[in-house]
């Protein structure tokens, strides 16, 4: 007989506080997919190699497949669904992926967008080479990364210009 062990956790998910009971062995990616219907969180390897399940936890990049769901307790979790406004307006980085033809099969896309969002939130200016280094944890087999780097660079420049305009 396998004893199931559950724990009740409370955390912020895409800006909203949620409470759920979760199997202590479950990964964050499984919980987000199965309990919250967040289909942007993809599973490509389940051992933290491919980056398709990337989410932000307290603003840091994590492979949610090797992050236990119970560790989310008390934390702030952000997925691609959380980048979309209530009225359905998508974020600048999502729009840049569309505009730069950085999407093909789409399976790596949400994870890539979350890694990129993390970079954009630092407010730093990265060179193309630095962007390549920072994004090397996300794998894509369709695009050769060229348009993905273009999209991230474009969104970064736009955000930095906006910030400079405000200051």
């Amino acid at each position, binding site marked *: 007989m396998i004893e199931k062990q559950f724990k009740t956790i409370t955390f912020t998910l895409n800006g909203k506080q949620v409470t759920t009971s979760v199997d202590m062995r479950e990964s964050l990616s499984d919980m987000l997919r199965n309990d919250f219907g967040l289909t942007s969180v993809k599973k*490509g390897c389940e051992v933290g190699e491919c980056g398709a399940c990337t989410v932000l936890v307290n603003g840091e990049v994590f492979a949610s497949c090797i992050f236990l769901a119970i560790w989310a307790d008390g934390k702030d979790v952000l997925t691609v669904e959380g980048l979309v406004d209530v009225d359905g307006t998508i974020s600048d980085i999502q729009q840049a992926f569309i505009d730069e033809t950085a999407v093909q099969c789409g399976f790596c896309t949400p994870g890539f967008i979350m890694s990129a969002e993390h970079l954009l939130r630092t407010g730093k200016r990265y060179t193309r080479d630095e962007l390549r280094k920072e994004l090397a944890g996300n794998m894509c087999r369709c695009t050769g990364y060229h348009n993905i780097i273009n999209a991230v660079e474009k969104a970064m420049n736009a955000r930095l210009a906006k910030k400079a305009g405000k200051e």
Partner: protein
Amino acid sequence: MVIGKSHKRVDAFDKVTGRARYTDDMCPKHAYVTRILHSTIAHGRVVSVDTSEAEKIDGVVKILTCFDVPDLPFPTAGHPWSNDPAHQDVADRKLLNEHVRYYGDDVAAVIAEDYVAADRAIQALKVEYEEYPFVIDPIKAAQDGAPLIHPERQNDNILAHSDIRIGNYEEAIKEPGLIKVEGWYYTPTVQHAHIENHICYAYREQGGRMTVVTSTQIPHIVRRVVAQALGWPWGKVRIIKPYIGGGFGNKQDALYEPLCAWLSLQVGGHPVKLDVSREETFVNNRVRHAMPCHIISWLRPDGTFAARKLELWSDQGAYASHGHSVVAKAMGAFPQLYPCDNVEADSWTVYTNKPVAGAMRAYGMPQATFHNECHIEDIVTKMNLDPVEFRRKNCMPVGYYDDFSKNELYHDTFNQCLDKAIALIDYDKKVELYKNQTGPVRRGIGTSLFWYNTAVWPISVETSSCRMILNQDGSIQLMTGETEIGQGCDTAFAQMAADTVGLRLEDVHVFTNQDTDVTPYGSGAYASRQTYIGGFAIKQTGELLKAKILRHAQKLTRMPVAILDIVNGNIVRTTDSRILMTVGELATRILYDMEESEHIAAESTYSIRSNAYSFGASIAEVEVDIPLCRAKLLNIVNVHDCGILINPKLAEAQVHGGMSMGIGFGLYEELLVDEKTGRILNDNLLDYKLPTTVDHPDLLVDFAENPEPTSPFGTKALGEPPACSPAPAIRNAILQATGVAINSLPMNPHKLFAEFTKAGLFETL
């Protein structure tokens, strides 16, 4: 006109928001899950499977073994059915196998309520094997006395052999003064490594039919294969294909859909999910055929070919899958890319005790392009000729016609592609700059052409169907059997349909998820066929729909059809360009007509009997750090003639992806086999080196846009061709930089160290 414009992908919004539904997103939560027990020997027979301990585990629903499956061998290749029994795919595997033929073969399956139970049950299964000798080298496997892998089918391991004979090779090589150039070239086993692993789930519906929802490129073909494996009539099987996370040919096979359907039947049709792990994707799906190759060319001192010979072995692995058709295509390039009056070519497809090889992006052509273009470089190196000029002089000439495929080279494609590539990468300057280098770090620049032909006619049927349904607002639903797998065909098809009917792009709604109960027949995503073949069906169906709309327009406007047209969703009188009514008004009036209502729709099938060459070139620039044995790709350009671009930005993106796969093939990727056990050593993304962002330079792309005369939209293959020529271009660049020919892929530090040592390169530093 919307064709030729870079419209945004129709599926991009859903994909950047996570709303696009892939197979796992649709699976019911109460579905049982499965795990497969894979053999831990490379070759042998399962004597027994003891399931007693595993069955006691809480949560285990049922355990099935190789002794339970029906004795119904089935084929898996994603080829259309052939009415000619001699041309049908080889049916050489069962759902689970008692005779295990590679390390990892499917022996038993556990159906359980969750993965914890399933995994524990797999560990508790006890298998007894009788071991046989095994063979992993295709050339050795082809020899007499090799362990027989399919003794019930054949008394050797050669699945097939074919040849090409032109002129008289033996006589031709007697010509005095000929220069002989000979080489061995090797391309390894690599894997598609799409980011979404193969996944499917199956359930039985009311009425007893079986539905399989699956990540596949070929829903209509998978339907037939599942029916064959179950021994069922084809119509009782329904396949649904949601969005898929890449395929690249791996999913151009019936992978685990037949087993999943059968497992569901064993539990009363309850939904059963079969979610393949990354490790299983590497070992238990399909791989690219490894191909050792031997080429001899005999040249006259003026640099023309007198005679050429090719021997090519294709490592099939344990089961036939796509079989000989892959190497047959590879061999076909040899006499065509560089025509010669005297050619002797032979190819063998050989079973080995290894993971099964199937279709992978460009179907034998990355292998053949590496073999052929390395050899061309060896010729020009030996004879001290200019590599670009030699290619220009000897490659397929304009007007070349192949009587078998009816393909013709209509345009000066090769020269145009070379000219553009040379200009983009500043080739001439760099060739000069990189001459006579010394020192530990050297640069080089190398060239490769490639040969590719679109689609599979006349080897198999080429047919595609399309349905268009007019809505009351004047928009249409567009359905084809051709599948969106990331390449962007839904967008290209929408553009084709909009232009054909005369609608705005936003008025074409593409039904992206094939459902064999709903979508008309199309063979699916392979052979870079879909924009070419699908284009015929869309053009024909669009014209049928347009004719129907205009007939009704004549009734409603009193104007003769001859002076009516549809432009941007409006019925227009062509004589004065006046808009008479919108297509939406027409559709609504006709559908709700009290006298004679009609739901306006059109459907048709187009079967083509033509084919199209799709050619191009790569030039690569590398920097080789000799002491580190590391080749770094600095620049690479691909130029393609794929006819008219339906959507230039999407076309460019396709080329980027293919180049990336070619770079991985050239520098990084190889599935390693333990020679002692036959086990795959690097079945994960940590140990199998998939190129990441840092392993790519910016990718340069251009096109020579010559309209393909046989296509209604002037288009032809683009999906696969970009993967063909990067690897040999990189190899030829390393040769220019160092003087050392690397004839075996991947060109990683291990290989470079061995070859540099052999060449004595370290002593020259």
